[in-house]
């Protein structure tokens, strides 16, 4: 892939809208029902008990802000950095639990426990998402942003 293709303004805009939309959508259910989301975070068995609620309360807001910023084009560099780190963290957390052999609830988009699926599916989805966030990290397109100098 050449630079021109990677830096295409329209392609970058579409990926921004998709990734931003995904994270905004993912955050809403978690913000509305923090107790259920905290239970899912607890179920990953990765954080000490005392940090579970703090993480469950702040994470969805980070997702929402980054999603909005990505779409409108404000503080994009910071948002893209965070989203890359978040998706990487999700992948690591899911992989650890895959090797532990426990099928956990993802807590990706909904806190409802009815949405059962396998860790492999969540992982594949997150790897696809990582491809998109990595692309945004690489792309140098500066158009369609409320604060172009931010990028």
């Amino acid at each position, binding site marked *: 892939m050449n630079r021109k293709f990677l830096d295409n303004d329209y392609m970058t805009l579409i990926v921004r809208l998709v990734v931003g939309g995904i994270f905004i959508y993912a955050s809403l259910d978690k913000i509305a029902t923090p107790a259920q989301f905290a*239970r899912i975070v607890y179920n990953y068995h990765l954080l000490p008990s005392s940090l579970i609620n703090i993480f469950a309360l*702040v994470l969805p807001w980070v997702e929402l802000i980054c999603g909005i910023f990505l779409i409108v084009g404000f503080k994009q560099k910071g*948002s893209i950095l965070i989203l890359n780190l978040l998706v990487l963290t999700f992948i690591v957390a899911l992989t650890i639990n895959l090797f532990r052999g426990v099928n956990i609830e993802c807590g990706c988009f909904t806190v409802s426990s009815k949405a059962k699926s396998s860790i492999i599916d969540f992982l594949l989805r997150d790897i696809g998402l990582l491809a998109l966030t990595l692309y945004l990290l690489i792309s140098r397109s500066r158009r369609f942003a409320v604060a172009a100098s931010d990028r």
Partner: protein
Amino acid sequence: MASSLRQALLIIIAAAVLAVATNSFSPNRIPWVGSWPSISGSDSIIVPPSYEEGDPPFISLDDAAAKYQSRGVVFIDARLPADFAVGHIKGAVNLPFDYLDQYYESVLSEYGPSDEFVIYCSGEECELSLHLGRYMMTKGFSKVFVFFGGWREWEKARLPVSAES
């Protein structure tokens, strides 16, 4: 890179501020530092053989612990007052099923049909929680859950307990 980090930090601070603001006023707010079971694998739901269609839903220890984080969810201990006095889930109210007539009015009069309840008793061999749950549903309470692992499972997981009545 430096500006990315600075922006990222700003975003996280903004998220934290919004989280504090919403979690101070939301009806679904949870404590910042919660209590979670110290044992893992408490995800299974214990259901007694006497369970029938239409009974209140049964929940696992993990679910009970999650509901415990939510302010506004009332925990009801269906055991005898003597057992309750020895130890119970912190913040729970005692409504002994064996003395239902005596306690029912005074305990439940302050709650309405929209309130959410988690009922428990001592553990798997005890069906007081199920009976009380069934009874409360006939009285118009719809958000009634039975935590059948009960006191024993809660205590084993080192979740918050209290001994005063």
